[in-house]
């Protein structure tokens, strides 16, 4: 325990926790998006309903769910602590500061925190619409498929969802490769590999998520 507190007190330690939890959350995105693909199967949502039934009843998955929440909380807390210390590290601002000459849009801190908070917001709404009704409403009137279909038939909700996805994409654009740097795994040799896998996370996965509202809005 002592070693862990020492680790967590150090700046690099907090960032290691951030990277591990962040990359762990990325694996969840993969599982999530794969299950969502069943929405597109033309069987009135049968397969999708079966899978979501399985996901909400299987004890193993439910345990993972708890780990996932823990990961999310660890990510948010570490991120906030890091951010607070960074804010305090330059009490007097520069008169002129050309940070944009040297850094990418997504890597600049204000952007990150903004997108991160939006991602958080997105998750809250998301859980409220799907997870809570399924888990806690005794008499859930509809199947999961119907719930999804109903939510995404609402253009306002869909738009909000897509905007949140764009922020998630920005967040992952910086975050994914950043995790590897912090874990000491990036090197000139592997840069191409990390950057290519990163594209899956910041581009393809958000696009696949965005396909759902698009499908229910225009093709259903």
């Amino acid at each position, binding site marked *: 325990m002592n070693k862990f507190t020492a680790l967590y007190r150090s700046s690099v*330690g907090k960032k290691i926790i951030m990277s591990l939890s962040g990359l762990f959350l990325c694996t969840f995105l993969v599982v999530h998006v794969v299950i969502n693909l069943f929405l597109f199967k033309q069987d009135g949502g049968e397969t999708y309903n079966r899978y979501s039934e399985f996901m909400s009843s299987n004890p193993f998955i439910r345990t993972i769910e708890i780990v996932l929440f823990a990961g999310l909380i660890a990510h948010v807390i570490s991120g906030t602590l890091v951010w607070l210390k960074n804010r305090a590290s330059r009490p007097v601002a520069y008169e002129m500061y050309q940070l944009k000459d040297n*850094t990418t849009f997504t890597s600049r801190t204000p952007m990150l925190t903004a997108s991160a908070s939006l991602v958080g917001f997105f998750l809250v709404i998301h859980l409220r619409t799907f997870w809570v009704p399924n888990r806690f409403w005794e008499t859930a009137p509809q199947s999961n498929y119907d719930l999804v279909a109903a939510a995404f038939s609402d253009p306002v909700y869909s738009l909000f969802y897509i905007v949140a996805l764009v922020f998630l994409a920005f967040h992952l654009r910086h975050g994914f490769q950043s995790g590897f740097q912090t874990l000491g795994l990036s090197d000139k040799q592997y840069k191409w590999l990390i950057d290519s896998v990163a594209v899956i996370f910041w581009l393809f996965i958000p696009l696949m998520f965005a396909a759902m509202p698009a499908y229910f809005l225009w093709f259903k």
Partner: protein
Amino acid sequence: MDFKLKIWRQKNRDDRGRFVDYEVKNVSPDASFLEMLDILNVDLVKRGEEPVAFDHDCREGICGSCGLVVNGRSHGPGRGIATCELRMRGFKGGETIVAEPWRAKSFPILKDLIVDRTALDRIIAAGGYISSKTGAVPEANSIQVPKPAAEEAMDAASCIGCGACVAACPNSSAMLFVAAKVSHLALLPQGKVERKERVLKMIEQMDKEGFGNCSNNYACEAECPKKISVTHIARLNREFILAEIS
């Protein structure tokens, strides 16, 4: 060339400081930024005013003494140069140039453009060395170092400790500086012996000094006069993890 200058003036550590406007005339385009300040200072002395204080020594980019944020860029616009290597020909005649000191909580301003960078010295003192008697010059081939490791180590060792990485970083993080030293020593057989204590102690000291955390946006690498690469930061992180888990 003529310039308008907006320079940070601050009497001492406790003074609040402010920008003062100056004009400097007849500067050769080949003059360095520091030489331009010399010209201004001669004028100021002639007028009986206090000259602008700034750090400098070698004036050829090797000592790490100089360091100003010029027009919002550490060591001014341009890549791989220290402030002493910044030439006035890169500016437009008549342009207003803003010059301020490195700004970071860990670098308190001593006077005008001079900051206290002893925080970096304390980080080095915490572990940035090897503790063995070096003695007389050893036989060249007694300790063999693979060529790629020697190259990497040499690149890292070229850090001049100027602090531009801290100044350029939105988080005032000293990771590039610390990484350069940790990487330099971890790559060489002589440094490997104390690698674990070194990385832990240097990071501990870095945190104690109040530097921010690295958020991997790599402004440091872009402004480093020695173009130290952020891959050294990855190595620093690796060294830290290995030291923690073993």
